[in-house]
């Protein structure tokens, strides 16, 4: 069996989805600048040929900012080489990709702290403070102290 | 199929409706006329005609080949349209799906009214020149179908009067122009004196039986002398026969199969009687079709002699050196008679003759096999009511001839010449159609005499 060479995924044609999709991104950037309208492109809804997705990722490049989100598995939120164009990859707890998107926006919604989480966090912080008590203010010397 | 078929174009029609009358012979009922028309249309009906009638795709290209359509722009002159009632009858009565057509009533019976209307199209406006047969992308020989349709029309008694009269006279008198054997003999004797040439009449035995057209006897008698001169010069054993001299066949032109047969059989019988090896046809187009290509079929077996048109004979004799001619010093063009060239296949012969005869031969543009018909063939020249149309159509021919700028116009058909003469005087035209045969005879070199 060892003499059978696996056929690597060929990039068999150039007339694929990458070019038109990039044009779509350009139009989306126009809309963002002119009307402040954000666009989300769900890459799962497009029929990519083998290798095309990598091609797309390569064409968009890597920009200044990459964020990692840990919620129900890892997610990567990365600004591409083109500001305002974001590459989002959601994985589940197994590490399988469950969604890929290009967002054309100033900052993807998911980067924002969510009100529900802020509320929960605030409550948590309040609880913590209460539990610690006022007398305990100097108790933890090694804790960083906000100025 | 009422007259409203013609309303489409009545405004552009050069011939006004009232002039299109139709003639009737005999006192048959309409029913009988239709019955006879169809029966006799079907008489010669075989797979050949069936193939043709089944193959038309209604492309209309035949119109562009027909001088009547080209000259008038009137769609009713579309060649295949001239056969419409016969196509209808074929599909209904003979075609492979005839039963279906009849049972479902998809094709109506042809009516007497229809046939009367079509008389104009089948006789007045068709010279059976066969130009349309050459354009048809389906290869339909439309001209042969018109000839068949005429058979039906004749039996239905729906022939133009003049043509019928001429044909009847040919049947009764043996000549369409009333040339009796006695008159023929007189004319020959006159020519003998006039041209100082020996003319053989009624020899018991001869290798060559020469026949002649009544038109020549009456209108172009020099042709008889010319024929004699040439045959004498070629040292042929030849003769004219008073019991078989008439080459024209108005039975064929008008559509009477019986009369056609009688006319042809007179020549065939005479030829057999004298033991002829060759029957030499005169300058007459339809005579060639009648005897050269239809004669044997009328006889019912191969003819025991060869049949040649005079131009073929001249070509052979000049090519072989049997005859010699002086060169004529003028430019010449040649009008091909349809039945001899296009339909008959003897296109090359006159050109061979002219190669020997003249230095400046000029082909007409689109000439030769695709030549415009003179417009007088197929009996049309006899039909009075067709005159206006005939003159109109002749303009095409005039243009074709004039384009050559030749000094002399030649032809090898007395019927063509007759039409040329008539149109010439109508238009006061500069060209006279002259006889190829006579020009050869005038310029014979007596070297081997």
């Amino acid at each position, binding site marked *: 069996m060892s003499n059978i060479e696996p056929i690597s995924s*060929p990039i068999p044609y150039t007339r694929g989805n990458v070019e038109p999709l990039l044009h779509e991104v350009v139009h989306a950037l126009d809309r963002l600048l002119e009307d402040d309208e954000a666009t989300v492109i769900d890459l799962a809804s497009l029929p990519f040929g083998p290798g095309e997705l990598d091609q797309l990722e390569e064409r968009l490049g890597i920009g200044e900012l990459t964020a990692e989100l840990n919620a129900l598995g890892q997610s990567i939120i990365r600004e591409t080489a083109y500001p305002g164009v974001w590459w989002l990859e959601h994985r*589940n707890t197994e590490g399988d990709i469950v969604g890929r998107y290009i967002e054309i926006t100033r900052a993807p919604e998911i980067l924002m702290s969510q009100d529900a989480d802020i509320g929960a966090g605030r409550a948590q912080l309040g609880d913590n403070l209460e539990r610690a008590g006022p007398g305990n203010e100097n108790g933890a010397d090694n804790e960083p102290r906000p100025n | 199929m009422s007259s409203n078929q013609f309303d489409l174009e009545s405004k552009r029609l050069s011939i006004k409706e009232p002039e299109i009358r139709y003639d009737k012979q005999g006192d048959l009922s309409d029913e009988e006329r239709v019955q006879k028309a169809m*029966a006799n249309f079907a008489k010669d009906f075989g797979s050949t005609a069936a193939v043709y009638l089944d193959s038309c795709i209604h492309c209309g290209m035949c119109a562009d080949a027909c001088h009547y359509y080209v000259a008038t722009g009137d769609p009713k002159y579309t060649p295949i349209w001239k056969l419409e009632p016969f196509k209808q009858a074929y599909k209904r009565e003979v*075609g492979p799906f*005839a039963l279906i057509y009849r049972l479902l009533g998809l094709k109506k019976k042809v009516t007497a009214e229809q046939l009367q209307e079509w008389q104009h199209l089948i006789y007045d406006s068709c010279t059976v020149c066969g130009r349309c047969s050459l354009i048809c992308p389906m290869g339909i020989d439309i001209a042969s179908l018109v000839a068949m349709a005429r058979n039906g029309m004749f039996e239905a008694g729906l022939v133009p009067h003049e043509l019928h009269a001429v044909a009847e006279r040919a049947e009764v008198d043996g000549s369409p122009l009333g040339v009796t054997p006695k008159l023929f003999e007189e004319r020959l004797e006159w020519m003998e004196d006039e041209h100082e040439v020996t003319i053989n009449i009624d020899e018991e035995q001869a290798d060559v039986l020469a026949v002649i057209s009544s038109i020549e006897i009456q209108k172009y008698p020099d042709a008889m002398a010319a024929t004699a001169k040439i045959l004498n010069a070629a040292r042929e054993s030849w003769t004219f026969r008073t019991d078989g001299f008439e080459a024209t066949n108005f039975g064929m032109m008008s559509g009477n199969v019986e009369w056609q047969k009688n006319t042809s059989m007179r020549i065939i019988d005479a030829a057999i009687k004298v033991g002829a090896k060759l029957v030499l046809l005169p300058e007459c187009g339809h005579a060639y079709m009648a005897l050269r290509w239809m004669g044997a079929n009328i006889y019912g077996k191969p003819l025991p002699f060869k049949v040649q048109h005079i131009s073929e004979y001249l070509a052979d004799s000049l090519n072989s050196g049997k005859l010699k001619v002086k060169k004529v010093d003028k430019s010449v063009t040649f009008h091909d008679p349809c039945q001899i060239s296009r339909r008959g296949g003897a296109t090359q012969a006159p050109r061979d003759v002219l190669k020997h005869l003249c230095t400046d031969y000029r082909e007409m543009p689109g000439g030769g096999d695709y030549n415009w018909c003179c417009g007088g063939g197929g009996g049309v020249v006899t039909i009075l009511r067709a005159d206006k149309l005939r003159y109109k159509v002749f303009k095409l021919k005039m243009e074709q001839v004039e384009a050559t700028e030749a000094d002399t116009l030649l032809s090898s058909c007395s019927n063509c010449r007759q039409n040329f003469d008539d149109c010439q005087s109508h238009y006061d035209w500069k060209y006279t159609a002259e006889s190829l045969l006579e020009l050869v005879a005038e310029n014979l070199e007596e070297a081997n005499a």
Partner: protein
Amino acid sequence: MKDIPTLGDILQARGVSRRGFLKYCSATASLLALPPAMVPRLANALEQTRRPSVIWLSFQECTGCTESLTRSSSPTLEGLIFDTISLDYHHTLQAAAGEAAEAARHAAMEENNGNYLVLVDGSIPLGNPGFSTIAGMSNYDMLMETVEGAAAVVAIGSCAAFGGIPGANPNPTGAVSVRDLIKDKPVINVPGCPPIPMVITAVLAQYLTFGQLPELDRHGRPMAFFGQTIHDRCYRRPFYDQGKFAETFDDEGARKGWCLFKLGCKGPITYNACATMKWNDGTSFPIEAGHPCLGCSEPGFWDKGGFYNAVSTGDIGSGKALAGAAAAGVVLGATAAAMSRARRKKTMKEG
């Protein structure tokens, strides 16, 4: 139903953040082929969703559909969906057996009368009740009994949806589909042999989130997943358009990944989401592996001629039949000609 927690409650209890939930929602929207703009609405709906009871019936089937579903990596988002439903009966997966299992089914039916979902895989034999039974009960009886109080039925796999392989010619068991039997309840078909696991969960998710039947095509399949052909979404489509085809499985064209139309690909007449959702957790789908689509999500896919016969083939009948036609033509032609000859003779006599 008052004590049934909503999905929002469940997630909160598990400490899933709002961000996590949003991520889950966009993944679900993607799964449901909803436009990304629908995510907020979806989030809202999902939060309110309550955990419904689900009864899974397996009839004449191969367990492939269950395999397909459970073999997808777990825990996953699909897994989460299953956390949101209460799978009260599935005789392959449940621990209980025998009478206890049947008792669980009856209990779930009684408790959730009018609200539970019935999932069916496998076809139902009508030929003889004994062909397939569970706990001594024929498939037909069990289906009818269970569906009685159901809110909707989902037919999972081509067997349940269309009769599938048991129903293939000559159909010895008289197998029929769920839709052949259930006329008074909504039936959603999720065909495929097996169906794409994500499609199964997505259909459930959609039903759960929006609480209504998705838009179905004429074969009862959700348009969201079965609205387009494999051919239309296939990455090899440009080759079809360019006229580049693999002629055999090991020729240059096959190696270059050209269109498999000539090798019998049923992509043009097969409606499914394989080309976009793909298999094995989004790895690939059969065409990507170099094999033509079999058309497994179409009715009667087993009986549509050979898998390797191109779609654009026709049947003009046997040589014998053609020869028969020719002979008939000859006879008719000869008759017509003879009739015409006879008619001609007759007319000529009369004329």
